[in-house]
């Protein structure tokens, strides 16, 4: 299989970024939109071609999907440890190419309508290009260090995009928050990478993930505080992934990231930044599974399950529609982590891994659709808040139907995409750990409930009197909605288990009817409850709020996690640690340096005074010296 053209897939968005970035002022807004869309179209076509080549033509040898690598050595550290740059093609990276290119293309098309008239139109498309480039690079990385480079690039581009409305203080704060929190997590990632490099002597995924390779066979060689060093490394790497994927307790940046323009939220949440953490764990899955009998993997499962539950509970009470979706994303990402965490390795045991990737795939479609639909609504009513919306179904038929499809898909109603992937995750959890299964099931019900709370709240509910009658969005915005809606319907019929498995051998997945039935039932109960509470305007929900009282308030304020973090950083870190450190720096460290500098200056002044600048003084010294040396040689050195 020829891998040379694959490098074009990330290069084209980079070229778009450079083109639009450098000629920012010269390009007309209309043109820049087309440039972005055109570039992404080419990337998407190449991605589909790659997928076709890999899955149907050349990827399989003896029933096993090959890992194809094309790379060049970039930096040599020792004889064995070097950093390479290149592209790695295996089932999950090909799948991610499809996901990223499709969602990014849709977001590009959508942005042409959504951002119309915005002053920074060209800049916006440039940033989108950079973001897409970084994500492609991350997906195609051949080793831990390369993935880390693009990991940081993704962080930078998300910073730029979240803070796109840079005149708005809240947007700036949100961008900083997202950057700092994920950066903080990346510290763990970096230490993890260095630990892996130190103990295994390589960064390469091929070597690390080889079940017969030295990295996996020799995991017990060194231990630290009761766990093997590699387990620690994997936990640290997972911290990096948890930061990007907004897992508890590093989730606080995600809801604030809604300050960015809505297409950006769709891109960040559906296809790029937040799934990077899931992708990272999946990328290193054999290590997670084999090192210390999956100790680190259990942590992944528990954190995923807890985040999923935690976020779903918060999502129920939020009133900003984008924030509901943000917490929904966090919850679904927890689902994916949970799926990875309960997965086995060989054959049908790998169903959790498969399901997790499947859910990533389907979730990208319907979550992008939900965000773009929300953007369409916000575009029409100029507000993010549920209280300003209601009965929009009459005004916005296309948005209404597509949003409904997405909501049904995420609620797990068959035969839409979300049902298949969610069901597989629950099957895997059921086989592995009953507690996690029940958490997952409960979250499925919560998801259905809050999604339809949102749906009924926006499109049904009270008959809001609008000052300006809202109208359906232009074609550039509804077209991506329709495409994504179609994908959300048919996405579940992709026979994923044939393509994406941890041991890269396809297997046949069957529906587990009892479990699927239970999951659907729970979903339908959630929808029915939402129907009762929010279909018509009533005060049931207010009464429920009164019943829960304190708990509602906690949930509404996201369990005060932001406040806790602020308290810890401001009151404890800044005051108790940073302030004394700053004093020490300013007075002791700077003081020492100042003393050295000042004494040098005064010494040089003294020396300068000894030089008169008169030739004769110098000549005198010279001749005097010659005479002295002559005397020494004549009278003393005569031996």
């Amino acid at each position: 299989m020829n891998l040379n053209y694959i490098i074009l897939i990330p290069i084209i968005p980079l070229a778009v970024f450079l083109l639009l970035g450098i000629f920012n002022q010269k390009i007309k807004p209309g043109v820049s939109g087309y440039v972005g869309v055109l570039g992404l179209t080419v990337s998407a076509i190449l991605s589909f071609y790659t997928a076709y080549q890999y899955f149907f033509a050349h990827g399989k040898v003896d029933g096993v999907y090959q890992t194809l690598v094309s790379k060049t050595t970039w930096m040599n550290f020792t004889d064995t440890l070097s950093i390479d740059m290149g592209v790695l093609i295996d089932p999950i990276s090909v799948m991610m190419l499809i996901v990223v290119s499709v969602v990014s293309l849709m977001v590009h098309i959508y942005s042409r309508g959504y951002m119309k008239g915005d002053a920074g139109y060209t800049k916006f498309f440039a940033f989108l290009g950079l973001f897409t480039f970084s994500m492609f690079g991350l997906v195609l990385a051949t080793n831990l260090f390369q993935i880390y480079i693009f990991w940081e690039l993704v962080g930078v581009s998300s910073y730029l995009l979240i803070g796109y409305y840079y005149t708005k203080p809240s947007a700036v704060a949100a961008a900083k928050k997202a950057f700092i929190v994920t950066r903080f997590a990346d510290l763990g990632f970096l230490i993890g990478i260095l630990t892996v490099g130190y103990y295994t002597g390589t960064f390469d995924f091929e070597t690390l993930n080889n079940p017969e390779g030295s990295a996996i066979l020799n995991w017990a060689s060194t231990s630290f505080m009761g766990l093997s060093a590699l387990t620690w490394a994997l936990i640290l790497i997972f911290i990096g992934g948890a930061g990007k994927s907004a897992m508890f307790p590093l989730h606080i940046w995600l809801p604030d990231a809604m300050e960015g323009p809505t297409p950006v939220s769709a891109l960040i949440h559906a296809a790029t930044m937040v799934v990077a953490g899931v992708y990272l764990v999946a990328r290193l899955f054999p290590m997670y599974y084999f090192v210390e009998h999956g100790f680190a993997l259990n942590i992944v499962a528990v954190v995923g399950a807890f985040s999923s539950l935690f976020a779903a509970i918060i999502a129920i009470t939020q009133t900003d529609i984008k924030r509901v979706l943000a917490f929904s994303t966090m919850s679904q990402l927890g689902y994916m982590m949970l799926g990875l965490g309960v997965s086995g390795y060989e054959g049908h045991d790998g169903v959790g891994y498969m399901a997790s990737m499947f859910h990533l795939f389907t979730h990208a479609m319907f979550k992008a659709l939900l965000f773009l639909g929300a953007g369409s609504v916000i575009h029409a009513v100029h507000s993010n808040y549920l209280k300003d919306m209601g009965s929009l179904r009459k005004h916005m038929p296309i948005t209404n139907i597509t949003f409904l499809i997405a909501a049904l898909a995420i609620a797990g109603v068959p035969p839409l995409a979300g049902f298949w992937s969610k069901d597989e995750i629950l099957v895997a959890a059921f086989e592995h750990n009953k507690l996690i299964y029940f958490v997952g099931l409960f979250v499925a019900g919560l998801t259905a409930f809050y999604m339809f709370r949102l749906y009924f709240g926006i499109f049904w509910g009270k008959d809001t009197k609008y000052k300006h009658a809202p109208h359906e969005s232009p074609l550039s915005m509804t077209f991506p909605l329709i495409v994504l809606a179609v994908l959300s319907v048919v996405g579940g019929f992709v026979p994923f288990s044939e393509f994406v498995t941890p041991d890269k051998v396809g297997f046949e997945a069957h529906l587990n009817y009892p479990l699927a039935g239970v999951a659907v039932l729970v979903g339908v109960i959630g929808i029915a409850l939402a129907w009762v509470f929010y279909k018509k305007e009533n005060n049931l929900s207010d009464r429920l709020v009164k019943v829960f009282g304190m708990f509602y308030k906690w949930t509404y304020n996201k369990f005060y996690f932001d406040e806790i973090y602020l308290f810890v950083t401001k009151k404890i870190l800044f005051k108790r640690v940073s302030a004394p450190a700053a004093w020490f720096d300013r007075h002791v460290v700077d003081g020492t340096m100042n003393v050295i500098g000042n004494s040098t200056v005064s010494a040089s002044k003294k020396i300068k005074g000894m030089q008169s600048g008169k030739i004769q003084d110098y000549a005198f010294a010279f001749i005097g010296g010659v005479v002295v040396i002559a005397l020494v040689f004549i009278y003393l050195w005569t031996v």
Partner: protein
Amino acid sequence: MIFGVSIYELLTVTSIIFFIGVYGFITRKNLISILISIELVLNASVVNFVVINKYLYPDMLQGVVFSIFIIAVAAAETALAVSIIINLYRQISSVEVKDIEVMKH
């Protein structure tokens, strides 16, 4: 060979001239006088060349030729030094050594 005059006497004379030149170089205040002192030093060495040549290798001419070289170089050097002094005078209206301190900055 000069009858009645030994090489010691001649070398004593040139040494005296040489040290007068050194003394003048160190003590004079005026740049022109310093230049003349340098000439004295050079003249002493030129005479030395001729004398030593005459007394040690009377058949050869190297010492004499070298003395002509030195005179040529000394003339060029003097011309250069004088031109520097003239330029200096235009700048600070003085050829006193103590006023030339400004050049160190």
